[in-house]
């Protein structure tokens, strides 16, 4: 029963009830409560509130390297946001982000679920195989991204070598504007499957076996059992998996950066890549537009979170 509890914790449901303190001791126990709270509050302020505040502040000023050192950046209000929104790169980056994120999480979820159902049957060697599916998760990203870019190399890549054996001509996976987004999406799907597999597998453990037995007695075939039992009962777990997948995928920088640097000609530039490139990818850091793009990403992720909460609440109603 360990797995379902993990899921509940991920859902973020408040857990415990507090015992009401006796009036005589209320004040001192309030102090105690505050004292216990203090480390967390300090931590949150220091590592969440302050960076967020700083990011917003960066995006509202014009921070050139000179202004950054001297601390006299000019206040420009929403100008950075307007610049970002009116930039040609924005539309392309937004489109790429949408394609990259949606295709990634859809494919990761579908493949993760298929594998979870497959392993749920518990055959011989299933544990070993399942462990091997976790490898992409364990490898350092620099290793997996470099390996992918080697495999997809136009001239010496193993993928093209295999395709050529079947008579397909050279595909410039990483160096053609038509295919570079596809290439990084494939790599990212591969990376995300273990995460989906683990969570969905844990969710499957939580579905009572009696339901399947009952369905079997009623003559439901495998597909009907999946369609009518597994899928509906997995909905809460699926929702949180998709939400976390969305948030992870929105902010992916490393794998794209290592494989294509967002190129060629911005073909694989997502919003996260664009933000990173403005801040660290050129000889001259442009922190302000980078922060503006970063904040837009936070807003998108936040909106997705709200949709999730809303859907959960709808579901909770009878």
């Amino acid at each position: 029963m360990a797995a379902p509890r993990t899921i509940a914790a991920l859902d973020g449901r408040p857990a415990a009830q507090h015992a009401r303190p006796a009036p005589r001791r209320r004040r001192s126990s309030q102090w105690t409560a505050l004292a216990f709270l203090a480390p967390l509050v300090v931590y949150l302020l220091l590592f969440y509130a302050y960076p967020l505040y700083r990011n917003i502040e960066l995006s509202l000023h014009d921070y050139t390297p000179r202004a950054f050192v001297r601390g006299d950046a000019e206040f420009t209000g929403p100008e950075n946001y307007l610049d970002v929104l009116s930039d040609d790169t924005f539309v392309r980056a937004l489109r790429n982000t949408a394609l990259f994120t949606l295709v990634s999480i859809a494919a990761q979820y579908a493949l993760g679920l298929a594998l979870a159902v497959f392993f749920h049957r518990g055959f011989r060697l299933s544990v070993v195989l399942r462990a091997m599916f976790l490898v992409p998760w364990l490898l350092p990203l620099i290793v997996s991204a470099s390996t992918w870019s080697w495999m997809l190399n136009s001239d010496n890549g193993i993928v093209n070598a295999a395709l050529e054996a079947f008579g397909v001509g050279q595909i410039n996976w990483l160096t053609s504007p038509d295919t570079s987004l596809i290439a990084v999406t494939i790599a990212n799907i591969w990376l995300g499957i273990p995460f989906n597999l683990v969570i969905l597998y844990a969710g499957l453990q939580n579905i009572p076996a009696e339901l399947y037995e009952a369905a079997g007695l009623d003559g439901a075939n495998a597909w009907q059992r999946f369609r009518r039992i597994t899928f509906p009962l997995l909905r809460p777990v699926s929702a949180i998996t998709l939400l976390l997948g969305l948030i992870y995928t929105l902010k992916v920088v490393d794998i794209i950066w290592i494989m294509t640097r967002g190129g060629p000609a911005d073909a694989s530039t997502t919003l996260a890549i664009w933000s990173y490139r403005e801040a660290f990818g050129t000889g001259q850091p442009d922190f302000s537009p980078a922060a503006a793009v970063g904040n837009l990403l936070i807003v998108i992720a936040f909106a997705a979170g709200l949709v999730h909460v809303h859907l959960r609440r709808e579901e909770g109603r009878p």
Partner: protein
Amino acid sequence: MNRRSLPARAVVFATAALTLAACASAPAPGGDTATATSGAYTWWDPYPQHDASSAWAERVNACGRQAGVTIERTAYDTTALTNQALLAGQEGNAPDVILLDNPAVSTLADAGMLTAMSDFGLDTSRFDENLIAAGELDGKTYGIPIGANTLALYYNKKILDDAGVDPGSIKDWASLNEALKKVKAAGKKPITFAAIGTEEGSFQFLPWFWGAGAQLTRLDSPQAVEALELWHSWVKDGIAPNSVISNSQNTTWEEFLTGEFAFAENGTWQINSAEKAGFPTGIVQIPAKGGGVAPTPTGGEFITVPVQKDTQRYNTTKKILECMTTPEGLVETGTTFAYYIPSTADGQQAILAKEAGLKPWVDAVRTAKGRTSDNLGTDYPKISEALWTAVQKALSGAASPADALREAQAQAKQAIGN
């Protein structure tokens, strides 16, 4: 008044202590370096590959001892170094000496972080003008080159011999193209270079760009288009592999070392590796379009001196800088780094006396040109970004060379205008 239970008091106390400790320790390491460590001089450089026991670290320490101080050296990765330097500048706790990649010098100088060499009386006239130009901004010099490197064409002698190409015949683009075609006809891969979408891509493109007679102030000139068309035709006709679009200089070099390629555009830093290759190698200067040697961009680090509150420190810093740049010192640095070409005429004489084989590289460095020269200064990084984007667009087929450069010029103009 309020009687707290013992555990409660303990928790409050512990929290307070922790918070205090966090507040107290956070700013301290940087906050007052200048006063706290008067005996130690801080030194940052971008050579993490040279650890504390390396010849380079020993060389830095020796110069510190000569100046009567200990040097605390910290090494960062090149890009991290610029960011660290900006942060340190913001907090007012910059180190005494930073070795900066040369295009970054004008950025930090413009931020007011660096002391001009003339402010503490260091004579800069002995340095080669074309090399020190990258450290100049508005008539002042903000750093001195500890050495220089640049680009040339390495060749695989075996492939050229088999294809019947005499490297000496390569005098201009036409003769180079002739040679490349012969290699292709002989069934080998003609050339590789790095056209990656970073500063490295611009660095590699500049010899062809300048060699055609183009200027960084006008990216869409007919000469610039000719240069990009040259690269474009190489990729289109299979003279160069398609992967150059995403290859860094290191990857290109690895490709060359496989022995499949006749030519590779690469830098001084590969001299040792070329000697160890499994085939005989040599270099030719990158030709200009109409003949002669194309100006290649200079690479290499500058010693810069960030502004300090305590101006007394500059006296010692000056001694350290002088120690690093004596002719013998430059030769030592040059050989430690396998290879850096000394940045003064005396130093170049001295290294040639030791290693005559470096002659073509010394010549290449003498005709090289700083990327931030022509007073481009802090505009260079923006122009460079537009340029490498254009190269990427043209080679990947997203736009024709002329269109890509027209867009690049508009992009650069807009970026500089801000």
